[in-house]
């Protein structure tokens, strides 16, 4: 029973049933610093992640 979140070459696993926002907090990623997509579609922070889902995170912060 897991949800997988992927950011660049890192993979994180959280338990299903939490919102995207809580899941990001759990793995210590600042929600403002990423966009989340599932199957190529952007998802919102209040979406509840279900078992087996894979969420791809896109870092939005750049230097300069």
């Amino acid at each position, binding site marked *: 029973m897991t949800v997988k979140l992927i950011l660049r070459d890192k993979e994180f696993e959280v338990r299903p049933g939490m919102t995207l926002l809580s899941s990001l907090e759990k793995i210590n990623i*600042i*929600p*403002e*610093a*990423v*966009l989340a*997509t599932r199957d190529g*579609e*952007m998802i*919102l*922070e*209040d979406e509840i992640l279900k078992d087996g889902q894979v969420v791809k995170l*896109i*870092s*939005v*912060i*750049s*230097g*300069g």
Partner: protein
Amino acid sequence: MKASVHMRQHKLALCRDHYLEWIPEQTERFIKKYEMFRREERVLVAVSGGKDSLSLWDILHRLGYQADGLYIGLGIDGGVGYSDESHRLSEKFASENGLRLHVVDVAKEYGQPIPILAEMSHRGQGRPCAVCGLAKRHIMNRIARDLGYDVLATGHNLDDEAAVLFGNTLQWSGNFLRRQSPALRESPGLARKVKPLCRFYEREMAAYALLRGIEYIYEECPFAEGATSIYYKELLNRLETDKPGSKLIFYLRFLEARETGLFAPAPEEAANLHPCPNCGQPTSTDDLCSFCRMIEKLKTV
């Protein structure tokens, strides 16, 4: 349609189609509000191949402005072909949209790529970022003036501006605070400079590029790792997560404070600028400007 982007600072959630309309509409509003440029003026967009500058170019083009691009080849590789890839993506965007891109290669024009220039000039404690910034400002300004553009536009977003503001506030750098603005008027030797995206969060610009299908360079500049600006952005984003709207308020209240004279110049300042005898851009010394001095020094090594 289902919402794709939620902007908590505006209490607004939009679906893809409305989001792609909303961003250009807002940009148009900021261009007018800060009197950046008019439709008959020619705009030169500084394009890096990143999400912000390519999105800016896309938006200005869609809004019907005459916007050409300027790509500056910095010669940064970092094992990932950073400059080559960002150049390729900039060219690709230009050709797909039938837009004109000017290219300046630093190594070809000034003898060495940025990392070597930085090493040889001993500026910036091992990081080429100071030299890179100096060279980019100089070249952008030179091309805008030489090719007769009315205004130079950069893709700075609100996170960029808030991070700079935060750094300058920590130091109370009055000189920098006074000059930080969405639009800087032209002055002798300097082109007008504008930042049409300065009120959008970085996350919003990434969402725009993603939803619009703009292919941009996702890899960070190899020299940006551990940069102070990124650390400040992180701090501000922690604050933003706890208190939505904090970043926006920090920046907007600053602009208001500056407008009402909180950072008025010391009386004897301002007048002390001279044109550089080599390039004509203003400098506070009687001699060459810092860019020309750097290039001059390299010739003697």
